[in-house]
Structure formats: structure tokens, C-alpha cells
């Protein structure tokens, strides 16, 4: 019974990544005390990055994926968890964001959630975290659906508990759209199962290449691809299927917004990349459906139209939510270009955007904590009262624009290189042009918070508490650090891109 020695624990790490938050969620329901629940959630959230980074590092060292058999059932028959360069990377991003925001959570949640719902709120947070990590780590198509729904159901609750009654409507709309998206995904998986008789991603990949040749099965496979891509596009809020996102982010409690903006759409993007690249293979996808072209057009539309919506927005959280739609456009753009630089840029932007957007929403969360509103009219001049918070906001905003010296520049640079590599010079121009729009909307809010006379509500505000400033500045520090030392993001992303694109050449 030396089950607790490192040698015995190490092979179990993949399952622990999902089981620990699940156990934490159980513990919070039994404790029913908001402080204890927060403590449990924090301890749990801080163990996960260590596990995921350890997994990622060992995958990068050996170059071999780590496969974990649940119940010790062999691969195509049982469910396996599989960590490779891509999933290890996305797992680390989600786990780190999930941990860093925890110190922020206590005061923010205490201010925005009523007492009797508070411990449940942490339960939902941990379930959501378990679901998101589960989506990324599982090697089984149907298991991914189950985790998708676990995280989504928890997300709907996280959003619905916002103070404004519009949070209820936002959660309802998200529930409808999210369920349609997940159901479309599961229809696609069902068609694949009928054709191949398997649900394991690796097994599906090897059987699909045979099935696609058979003209009788080809239609089913192509239909499945269509269903899965549309379903997951709904989940990841690809333009024009993003209608649920602005309200959901705007009216959710600050803590939930910061967490979801950094992680939820990223897990859906991961699943899309996994299915399109690892299961179908780029060649098969692009030969049968013009998904690449369609996604490029939609991504560019997102970059422009969502950015323009952000410019005219007067609610700071909604503005950032529209900006999220635009930034998702950048990520899907690189994925759709599907060359080495494009994939690297997109995957790097998953981390960079998660860090920057979480920082921005944390700053707004701190403002909301002090002012009680994020409308431009209420937060004008807040920069003078909360200089540290708004300075962090400004730096993260610079990152979002893609200013050189910040993380945002690195990913946009790779995207531009990818477009040049593929000879799409107009796309390079569009990337730069859309970044200029983000200068406008970040510039507008900067003008509001720094250069206007403090509003009545803002005049009474004081600097955010330290527990909010520390996670905020950690993320802002990361934004700048990752603008110079890109080994962690670009280095890992290019390894993952290499693995994904192996089949193409």
C-alpha cells in the first residue's frame, strides 16, 4: 500500500486533473460555508497547474503522448485520457487561469453573490473547471460531449447568478444556443459512430481514412464533419454564431466573466482543432468541404464587425465581450490558414488572449467591486481613483491591440507571417486594419477612465484591495513577459502545430 509514493502517483496524474476538482466540488457542497468553500476551491485550483505543467513538460521531453486507461480498459473499448503537446498546452492554460483568479474571487463573489448561494457558486466553479479540463484531456468523442455539457451547465448557473435580471435572460439564451451546439456535435459524433463503430479519437482517425473512400459512407462522414464544425462553432462563438456571448459576459458576475472569457471558448476551440486536424485530418476536411475558406471569411468578418460593435458599446464588459468575439476570429483565422506559422500563432493566441482578456475583466471586476457599475458614464475618471487597477487595464489593453513588446503582438505577428506564407497578402492588411479598430475601442475607454472628470459614483471609489491587484498584476506581468520570452507560448505552440500538421505534408 505505498500508493502515495511519487512513483505510484505519477502515472495517475491525468485522471487526478479531473478527479481533484470533482472531489473539491463535493467537499464544498458538504461544507456549506462560503469561506471554507473558497478555501477548498483555491487549494484545488492551485494544485491543478502543477499537474498539468508536469504532464506538458514530460510530453515535450519524450515527444510521446501520455495515455491513461480508465478502469484499465484497452484503448478502443474503454475511455482513455490522452495528453499530447496540444492538449497539455491547453490544459496548462486553463489550469493556470483557473488558479490565478482565485485570490480575486473571495471579495468579488462576496460582493456580488448572495450569502446562501455562495458556497454553491464555488461548487459550480469547480465543476466547470473539471468539465473544461475533461474536454481537453479526454481521448473519446462522446466523453468530450459529456464534459462539454458538464462545463456548460455549470457555466449557465455561474452566469445566471448575476445581480442584474438580464443575467437570467443571458443565461437562458446561452443555454438554448449552447445546447443546440452540443447537440449538433453529438449528432456528428453519432454519424461517425454509425460509420466506424468507434468513438476513440485515434481509432476514428485510422478508420475514417478507409471510410471516406467508400462512396456509400462518404456522405455520412462529410455530413458528420459539417454537424461537428457548426456545433463547435456555436460553442466557441465563431461569428455569426456569437450572439449569446456579449450578454452572457456582460451580465455574469465579474469573477465568472473573467474565468469564462479566458477558458470556456478556448476548450471549444481545442475540441474543434482536435476533431478537424487529428480525427478527420486537414487533407480530408479541406477536400470535402470548403471549411477553410468559410472559416477564413467568418474570422475576418468577426475581426471587423465585432470590433466595430465594441467601438460603439457603452458598457465596458460588453465592449470587452465583443472584443473577445473579434479575438476568437484571430484564433480561428490561423487555424483555417492551417500552415505551421498560422497554427503556431493561433495556439499562442489561445494563451495570450486568455491571459490578456482575463486581466482586463479582472480590472473591470475590481472597478465593479468599488463602483458597482461598468457603464462608461459611471466609471469615467476612475483612473485617478484607482490608478493601479486602471494602469493594469491599460497595459493589458495595449496587449490586446497587438503593441510590440506585449504578448498580443507575438501571436498577430505569426498570423501575419502565416498569411504571407500562403500568399494571402490582403489578409495581412486586414489583420493590421482590424488591430487599428481595437486601438479605437481601447482608446475610447482609456479616454473615459483617465481624461474625464470623475463621475459621482467614481468620485467615492478607492483603490482595489490587494487580493484583487495581485492576480491582476500577475497576469499583466505575464502579458509583458510573454511579449519578450516566447518559449512557453510560441515554443510549445509550434511543437503542437508540428504534431497537428504532420499528416498534411
Amino acid at each position: 500500500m505505498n500508493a502515495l509514493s511519487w512513483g505510484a502517483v505519477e502515472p495517475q496524474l491525468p485522471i487526478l486533473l479531473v478527479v481533484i476538482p470533482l472531489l473539491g466540488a463535493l467537499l464544498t457542497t458538504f461544507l456549506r460555508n462560503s469561506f471554507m468553500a473558497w478555501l477548498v476551491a483555491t487549494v484545488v485550483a492551485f494544485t491543478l497547474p502543477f499537474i498539468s505543467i508536469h504532464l506538458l513538460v514530460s510530453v515535450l521531453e519524450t515527444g510521446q503522448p501520455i495515455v491513461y486507461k480508465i478502469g484499465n480498459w484497452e484503448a478502443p473499448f474503454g475511455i482513455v485520457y490522452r495528453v499530447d503537446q496540444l492538449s497539455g498546452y491547453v490544459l496548462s492554460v486553463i489550469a493556470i487561469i483557473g488558479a490565478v483568479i482565485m485570490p480575486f474571487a473571495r471579495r468579488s463573489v462576496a460582493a456580488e453573490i448572495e450569502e446562501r448561494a455562495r458556497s454553491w457558486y464555488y461548487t459550480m466553479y469547480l465543476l466547470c473547471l473539471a468539465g473544461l479540463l475533461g474536454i481537453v484531456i479526454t481521448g473519446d468523442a462522446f466523453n468530450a460531449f459529456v464534459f462539454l455539457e458538464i462545463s456548460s451547465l455549470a457555466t449557465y448557473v455561474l452566469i445566471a447568478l448575476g445581480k442584474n435580471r438580464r443575467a437570467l435572460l443571458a443565461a437562458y439564451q446561452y443555454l438554448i444556443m449552447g445546447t443546440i451546439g452540443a447537440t449538433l456535435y453529438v449528432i456528428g459524433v453519432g454519424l461517425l459512430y454509425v460509420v466506424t463503430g468507434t468513438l476513440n479519437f485515434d481509432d476514428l482517425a485510422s478508420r475514417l481514412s478507409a471510410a471516406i473512400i467508400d462512396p456509400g459512407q462518404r456522405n455520412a462522414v462529410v455530413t458528420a464533419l459539417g454537424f461537428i464544425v457548426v456545433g463547435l462553432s456555436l460553442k466557441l462563438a465563431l461569428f455569426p454564431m456569437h450572439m449569446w456571448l456579449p450578454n452572457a459576459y456582460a451580465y455574469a458576475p465579474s469573477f465568472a466573466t473573467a474565468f469564462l472569457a479566458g477558458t470556456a471558448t478556448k476548450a471549444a476551440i481545442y475540441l474543434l482543432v482536435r476533431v478537424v486536424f487529428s480525427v478527420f485530418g486537414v487533407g480530408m476536411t479541406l477536400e470535402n468541404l470548403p471549411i477553410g475558406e468559410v472559416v477564413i471569411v467568418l474570422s475576418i468578418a468577426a475581426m471587423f464587425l465585432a470590433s466595430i460593435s465594441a467601438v460603439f458599446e457603452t458598457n465596458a464588459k460588453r465592449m470587452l465581450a465583443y472584443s473577445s468575439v473579434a479575438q476568437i476570429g484571430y484564433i480561428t483565422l490561423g487555424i483555417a490558414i492551417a500552415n505551421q506559422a498560422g497554427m503556431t500563432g493561433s495556439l499562442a493566441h489561445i494563451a495570450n488572449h486568455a491571459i490578456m482578456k482575463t486581466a482586463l475583466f479582472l480590472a473591470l471586476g475590481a472597478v465593479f467591486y468599488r463602483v458597482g457599475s461598468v457603464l462608461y458614464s459611471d466609471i469615467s475618471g476612475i483612473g485617478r481613483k484607482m490608478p493601479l487597477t486602471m494602469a493594469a487595464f491599460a497595459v493589458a489593453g495595449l496587449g490586446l491591440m497587438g503593441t510590440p513588446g506585449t504578448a498580443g503582438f507575438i501571436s498577430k505577428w505569426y498570423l501575419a507571417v502565416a498569411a504571407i506564407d500562403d500568399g494571402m497578402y490582403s489578409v495581412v492588411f486586414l489583420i493590421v486594419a482590424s488591430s487599428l479598430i481595437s486601438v479605437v475601442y481601447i482608446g475610447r475607454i482609456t479616454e473615459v477612465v483617465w481624461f474625464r472628470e470623475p463621475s459621482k459614483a467614481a468620485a467615492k471609489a478607492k483603490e482595489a484591495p490587494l487580493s484583487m491587484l495581485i492576480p491582476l498584476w500577475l497576469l499583466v506581468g505575464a502579458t509583458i513577459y510573454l511579449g519578450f520570452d516566447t518559449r512557453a507560448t510560441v515554443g510549445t505552440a509550434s511543437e503542437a502545430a508540428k504534431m497537428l500538421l504532420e499528416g498534411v505534408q
Partner: protein
Amino acid sequence: MELLKTFAAHYNYFITIFLMISGLFIVIARGNLIKKLVGLSLFQTSVYLLYLTPAKILGGTAPIYEEGYKLYSNPLPHVLMLTAIVVGVATLSLGLALVVRIKEAYGTVEEDEIFAKDPEAE
């Protein structure tokens, strides 16, 4: 005649498609929040049929080992759909709970009336 034969042989799939489309139509076309959830449920239900149709072997029994039975239905899709049913129930009840809260907050469950009361919520 040939067309009719294909139809008869695959009638399950036509029912699936009919349920799927009508569910989706209700979600999009109806303004009543509860009716929308009914449509959503119908949409999810069609998936159960999609999975179970190929899994059921005519004349096959439940896949439990017993003397004298050789032909079994495929258990895996049944298990998957059990999970999907649970997910569906959870979604539906959460959706209904939200509708109850919306009714308390806005006093109505009609989408157009809600937007009339709160134009910015759209």
C-alpha cells in the same frame, strides 16, 4: 416503388430528421420561453433515436449472457443515450428553473414582452 422501399427501410431516420427539424423550428420560431425549451427537448430527443436505430438488432435481446441466446443488441449506444438523457434532463430542468426566475423578474415568459419591458436586454 424503389423510392418507397428506401423510405420504408429507413423510416426511423426520416422520423429522426422530422423530429430534429421540428424541434429546431420551434426553438427559433416560438417566442414563449417554455415552448422554446419544449422544442429544444424535442431536438435532443431526435438524437436518441439517431443513436438507437442502428444499435437495435432485430430479434436481438439485451446483451446479458444467457444460455440459448446468440443475438444481442449493441449496448454501447444505449449506454451513451442513457448519459445523453441525463444531460437532457439536466438541461431541461435548469432551463425551466431559469424560466421561473425570469417570470419572477419580468412577470412574463413571452420574449417580445420581455424585450418591450427591457429593450437593452436583446
